[in-house]
């Protein structure tokens, strides 16, 4: 029984390691400036917990075989070792807390700094199963919006066109284009329930909370089309709340924007 259990634990451990190390399925390549640092921290953490995982399971398996009941005699009456306990408490505390501190670096860069001054502002307003994207237009200012004016057919964010700043705002649905290599400042809102803006290659996830305007910023460094998924349960077709993030070169982006400017 002891051998069998140790064997099973060993096989499970090996299988797990193979599954993780083989990367048969893995995260997509990062396209944001901060993405690689998150990936590095992830791999570092994964390595450390991987070692801990192997050590712990191997020790367990080894003890199971080595100290299975055999022959005569008794177990050892060994039940305390303050020095040993102090040692492993210290080691785990140091390792875990170092990881915790290291784990704050990207976070601090993303969330403790204000968006850089020249950043392009984009407003993302989530609603049940749709992403509404708004650009401030040539004047660089978002116009006033009013809840009563919201109309899913032609005014999804409720622009108040009596405000001059609103007249050049550009609103798209589920299509979010951004220029590559430029800081993007996203203002996240929601019209109804909580949604979460999740673009896996961007390594960016942030809830959109009704009643709040949440600011995030990032910089994409590779062009392409990527999917925006909702990562917070928002209702019936949560699993189909798909938008697209288009990372374009600066001129393409300008062209894209102009095509969508109201005539």
């Amino acid at each position: 029984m002891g051998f069998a259990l140790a064997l099973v634990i060993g096989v499970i451990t090996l299988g797990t390691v193979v599954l993780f190390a083989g990367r048969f399925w893995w995260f997509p390549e990062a396209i944001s400036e901060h993405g690689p640092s998150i990936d590095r921290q992830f791999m570092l953490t994964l390595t450390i917990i991987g070692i801990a995982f192997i050590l712990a399971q191997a020790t367990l398996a080894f003890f199971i075989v080595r100290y299975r009941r055999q022959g005569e005699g008794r177990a050892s009456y060994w039940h305390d070792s303050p020095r040993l306990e102090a040692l492993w408490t210290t080691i785990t505390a140091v390792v875990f807390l170092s990881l915790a501190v290291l784990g704050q670096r990207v976070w601090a860069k993303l969330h403790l700094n204000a968006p850089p001054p020249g950043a392009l502002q984009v407003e993302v307003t989530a609603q049940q199963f749709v992403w509404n994207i708004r650009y401030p237009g040539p004047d660089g200012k978002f116009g006033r919006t009013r809840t009563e004016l919201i109309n899913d057919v032609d005014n999804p964010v409720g622009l108040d066109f009596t405000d001059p700043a609103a007249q050049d705002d550009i609103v798209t649905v589920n299509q979010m284009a951004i220029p590559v290599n430029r800081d993007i400042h996203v203002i996240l809102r929601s019209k109804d329930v909580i949604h979460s803006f999740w673009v896996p290659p961007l390594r960016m996830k942030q809830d959109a909370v009704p009643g709040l305007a949440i600011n995030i910023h990032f910089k994409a460094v590779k062009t392409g089309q990527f999917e925006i998924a909702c990562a917070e349960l928002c209702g019936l077709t949560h699993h189909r709340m798909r938008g697209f993030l288009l990372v374009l070169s600066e001129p393409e982006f300008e062209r894209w924007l102009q095509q969508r400017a109201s005539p």
Partner: protein
Amino acid sequence: MGASSAPFSVSAQGKNPRILKGGKAMTQATAVHEAPKSFIRRYIFSTDHKVIGLQYLFLAMAAVAIGIVLSLYMRLRLAWPTERWPLLGKLFPNAMAGGTISPEFYLSLVTMHGTIMVFFVLTTAPLGGFGNYFLPIQVGAHDMAFPVLNMLSFWVTLAGFLVLMAAFFVSGGAPISGWTAYAPLSAVGEIAGPGLGMGQNLWILSIALFCIASLLGALNFITTTLNLRTKGMAMTRLPLTVWAWFTTAVLALLAFPVLLAGGILLLLDRVAGTSFFVPGGLIVSDKILPHKGGSPLLWQHLFWFFGHPEVYIAILPGMGITSHVLSTFARKPIFGYRAMVTAIFAIGLLGFLVWGHHMFVSGMSPYSAIAFSLLTLSIGVPSAIKTFNWLATLYKARIHFTVPMLFALGFVSIFVTGGLSGIVLGQTSLDIPMHDTYFVVAHFHLIMGVAAIFGIFAGTYYWFPKIFGRMMNDALGKLHFWLTFIGIYAIFIPMHILGIAGHPRRYAETAGFDFLTPLQPIHVFITIAALITAGAQLLFFFNFFWSIWKGKKAEMNPWRATTLEWTIPSPPPHDNFGPQTPVVHRGPYEYSVPGAAEDYLLQTAPPAPTKS
């Protein structure tokens, strides 16, 4: 006195175990006061902690069966989203019209599976079930401090469960807002989605009832542990199970009221038009809502202030049972008893300070996120201490591979696996990609669900002979272990990979996204593993009920264990210890004491071994 005190004679105290083995000394101790005669007072509205414990256990078994069935429906939907299951549809004629599992029904399943498992299985079985049955016995009390409260606690829990089940049968069906019921989705009513009308109200009511029941139970646990310990049962001689139940009860006592407060506010937002959680200017289904000014994050704070301790409410009893069982079958004292107790308390205390790690990407202040992150990883330290101590308990042990021991060893393995992924999720930076993906699902199922269930299994196989006076079938039990242990890993390890690939949780299918469709084979694999593992649980249910009537008769102390429950007959008489109150002379895990005649010493064994 003579006849009735025979089982407590010195020979039963470890000096002469032959009598024990032969089972000859198992005369039933006559109770000083007879147990209630009528069936209703005895088995239904009983105030006997053992009957109440069993009632909790059976409730949890019913709940877990339902919870597993619901999870299988979810798995079927995830693996084969468009498949029709006319036969399975018969169980839910309204929600599964035509036999397909619709996305809204999938979300109802998500909600109900989570709620049933967290509240009515993981809280009910290890705490309400085993805690009620064995805490008074292990501290040497005749019953809980307040038996009537104890009885109420069970009946209110049952009412909560029935109210929750009723959600399936009201118009609109069960709520789709998840077991976390995030406002405003849960707060604005049916216009936000199916099941969010009456179903959600019933959900809140059920949770409120559960809160009240838990409070009554927790009061009993705490008072009994502190005040009804028998002579000699110092706090430092309590079995680690008792420490775990005690700490769990303190957590429940302080955490559930906050959930109750949140639930009341949520209900008022829904039915009385207040705006605690619902902000102004919401437009749901093209309708402007009248609410104004509430805060959705407030619900999350209240919920997780309860929700995180709840995780420990589920797992701490499992840790206690594992320690208890490991020590018994390692035939060694638990390593570092004081460190174990300290770790339980540290985990309980820190458990109240880390709720924010569920909210890193919620829009909460990024500074408090950092504080929560540091506290979260420091909770890994007491958890690691426990793991080290379990391993050290096995060092130079003499391991008996009984079924409870297998599950306890499985617990250690799974606890390590599930705990380590917490190191990823606890880091703010890494939570950005991992939050609300399958990585989280894998993590909490392993650490809170499966590990706790392994604790429950270990406890069931371990205490079954005491509860029913019969042994469970060994071969079936071992088969059950192997299938479950391998199956669990097959289900949950691949889920980590889904999460790393970015798969958000609570998605009814992968078809909606290009980056998810390549992951579909993993879903199919997990579903097959889940079906097999769930099937293996039938072995357990069969073994359990078959053994109640047909199992081999159990001795008073079949495992040759040390704590007080093994000093009384199996099953224990109505008042546990009969006319005598046990007197405790030593710690709970005195195995392989050098110089002792046997390799275990009961807690009641007299201080100095008498000359033999």
